[in-house]
């Protein structure tokens, strides 16, 4: 195992995190919050430590799957540990372990929180919490691949991408790793900006729009209000429903659309299944809610769509308390939480593509039972 190369990568990650921390520091100073200085201090510290590691560029840059896994895991641990420090030193979250929980939840885009009342936090703290979703959504290592000439022309950095990306297989969008990573981040950034603009038009403040965009893009779910999404305008709910859904799609789709390979884009069966599951789940919940007499009284149609989109992509925003819905609706929500979003997206869960493989294997098995001599291609499963 090439430890010095792993250390080098973690060092680079620290540098990037230090740079990213300047953003909440700026937000804090903009709102006149003293806690903003904490970010600046931690950023400087992290940058210095990172610099010491990075300056010793390892001679042996060979790098394989094992190193990729370790470097990725370690990077996230280090990022969370460092990211939690500002909460602790400002006393906004008094215990370091609680702060660490919050940061791990943020970077992994889980969205679980130890905070009972998020509105008591300073703006810059809230911003950093949400921003961690955005960083975690696409992955900081992919970002690194896009900007750093890491291992030059060797294919070894594919191991980093594989270790960080969700889904059963990882393919590059274009022959060069660097441009693939740049494409991914470009798409991510573009969609986020669009979401942010539409939320602003929907009547949110810039701060709320930014934080909620981060939560949507990373499919994380940290909000800025205790009531999550209930108090926002209809337009904001619709926009967020759509964007949660969009961020849960395989990013290859956007690449194919941008390079105008529409036929290939239409052929992406995972996307078709994903949309099918979404509309089936929303439709059946709507019917169920209407049957139970909840629709129109405690919930509106948008709430059903919003909840399905939010749960399916494991974002976790809520407009209503769906725990009070009938059992059938709740079972559907649990089921789609498992199925999750598409591979190659920021969404969580087991991923639609894995279920597709599973169903295809089952149907092939059934066909074989009905007609044993039928020859099936080995790759028919995929």
């Amino acid at each position: 195992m090439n430890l010095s190369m792993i250390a080098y990568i973690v060092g680079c990650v620290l540098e990037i995190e230090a740079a990213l921390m300047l953003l909440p520091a700026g937000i804090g100073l903009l709102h006149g919050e003293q806690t903003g200085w904490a970010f600046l201090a931690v950023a400087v510290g992290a940058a210095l430590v990172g610099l010491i590691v990075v300056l010793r560029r390892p001679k042996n840059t060979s790098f394989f799957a094992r190193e990729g896994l370790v470097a990725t895991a370690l990077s996230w641990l280090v990022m969370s540990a460092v990211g939690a420090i500002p909460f602790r030193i400002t006393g906004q979250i008094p215990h370091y372990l609680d702060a660490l929980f919050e940061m791990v939840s943020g970077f992994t885009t889980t969205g679980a929180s130890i905070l009972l009342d998020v509105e008591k936090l300073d703006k810059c703290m809230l911003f950093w919490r949400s921003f961690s979703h955005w960083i975690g959504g696409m992955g900081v290592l992919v970002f690194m691949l896009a900007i750093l000439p890491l291992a030059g022309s060797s294919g070894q950095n594919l191991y980093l991408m594989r270790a960080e990306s969700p889904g059963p297989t990882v393919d590059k969008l274009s022959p060069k790793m660097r441009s693939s990573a740049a494409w991914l981040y470009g798409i991510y950034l573009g969609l986020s900006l669009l979401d942010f603009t539409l939320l602003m038009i929907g009547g949110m403040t810039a701060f709320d729009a930014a934080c909620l965009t981060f939560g949507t893009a990373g499919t994380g779910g940290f909000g800025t209000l205790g009531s999550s999404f209930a108090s926002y305008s209809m337009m904001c709910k619709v926009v967020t429903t759509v964007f949660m859904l969009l961020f849960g799609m395989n990013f290859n789709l956007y690449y194919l659309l941008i390079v105008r390979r529409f036929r290939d884009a239409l052929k992406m069966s995972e996307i078709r299944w994903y949309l099918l599951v979404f509309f089936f789940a929303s439709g059946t919940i709507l019917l169920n809610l209407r049957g139970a007499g909840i629709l129109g009284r405690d919930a509106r149609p948008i709430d059903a769509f919003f909840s399905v989109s939010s749960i399916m992509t494991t974002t976790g925003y809520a407009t209503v308390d769906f725990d009070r819905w009938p059992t059938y609706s709740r079972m559907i929500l649990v089921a789609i939480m498992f199925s999750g979003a598409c591979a190659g997206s920021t969404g969580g869960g087991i991923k639609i593509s894995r279920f597709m493989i599973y169903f295809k294997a089952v149907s092939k098995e059934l066909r074989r039972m009905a007609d044993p001599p039928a020859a099936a291609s080995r790759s028919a499963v995929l």
Partner: protein
Amino acid sequence: MNIIVVGCGKVGLTLARQLRREDHAITIIDVDKDRLEAAVGAMDIQGVLGNGTSHRVLVEAGVEQADLLIAVTDHDEQNMLACLIAKKAAGCQVIARVRNPSYYEDIDFIKGELGLSMVINPEWAAAQDIYRLLQIPSALDVDTFDRSQVNMLRFQIQPESPLDGKNMMAVNSMLGGRMLVCIREREGQIVIPRGSTELRAGDKISVIIPRVEIAAVLHRLKLRQVPIHSVMVAGGGSTTEYLTGLLQRSGVQVKILESNMDRCQVLAERLPKAQVIHGDSTDRQILQEEGLPNAEAFVCATGIDEENIMLALYAARVSGAKVITKISRIDFEEVVEDLNLGSVVYPKNITAENIVRFVRALGNASGNNVETLYQLLDGRVEAMEFVVQPSAAAVTGIKLQELGLKKDLLVCCINRRGKIITPTGQDTLEIGDIVVIVTTAKGIRDLGDIVR
């Protein structure tokens, strides 16, 4: 530049690696999933699974955006078909590997009709390389610069050599400027020499010598220059067939050892003047019987690298013959170098050099293209030939010592209207000159790149 390589074999991989090193975007097509995955895991390239002669697969690999397609599968027919489809469908430049001697005879016709930019034939290239080495047996390597009429020779300095213990200035005055030392290798370290660099027995040096002076210089250096009259070749593959043809044209006797009877028959029919022996070339008794101990030159060109290496070591032990070894796999180049086999020929590298040169010229708009390119010593040094065009005004008419040349870059030779100048700091480059440059700096595409 976007480049598609069809065929993920040894040549395909070598090409992909070399071209990726030059920072091009490479997509490789192959029908073998495992081979493809291994290649994509080892390099930053994209793989497409499928048959490279299928239009759909080529489109999936992005042939419409490609600048160049190189077809190097094992089958000549597939290579030509892939090139033809790519040419017709997307109009990109195409290069095919054609190695079957019966196609290669009509290669100019095929090239013209199919619109191929270039045809590569590693076996033919290797045969030419071996042929050159047999003409100058005391050299470890011979590279030719045809435009400037100079050769680059690589020697090991022997203990009794007059070069032992001399520095560059002394060497120059001894040889009257007819030879320029451009690379010195010592214990794996490569130096582009300056005036004070010293030579010592055991060093390997590469020198540039005008072709007409080679005999005189070799004489002064007390190196063997007896021409070779007979050659023994182990293995009867395509390389051997090409080589025998070349050698016979200059009247050299060739004896071929081949273990496959059918192949022996074919060779005997095609090369009536050669002596084809049916027998296992790794059999000591047959080697003795056929006179290896007294052979003038021995070429190890069987299809198996390990066998070639064993044969070369054995031949060096039992005879005083000039030994040349053909090695197909380039993965262990440095280990092979350590074995001190003498002259080693890598068909894959020769081919890759030609393609890299072609690609560099393709990506260069100014017209001061690399005419000839050699990647020496595992790609750590490059030797290049340029013709100075009017567009290179930035480097012409200025004394070399005032030009601010790149570090570790040497202008080795200037051919000015047929007269060969071994340049000093006082010389200038002029339009119409043909210059040879040796450097450890990477990626020089244009004559303008030689200055800092």
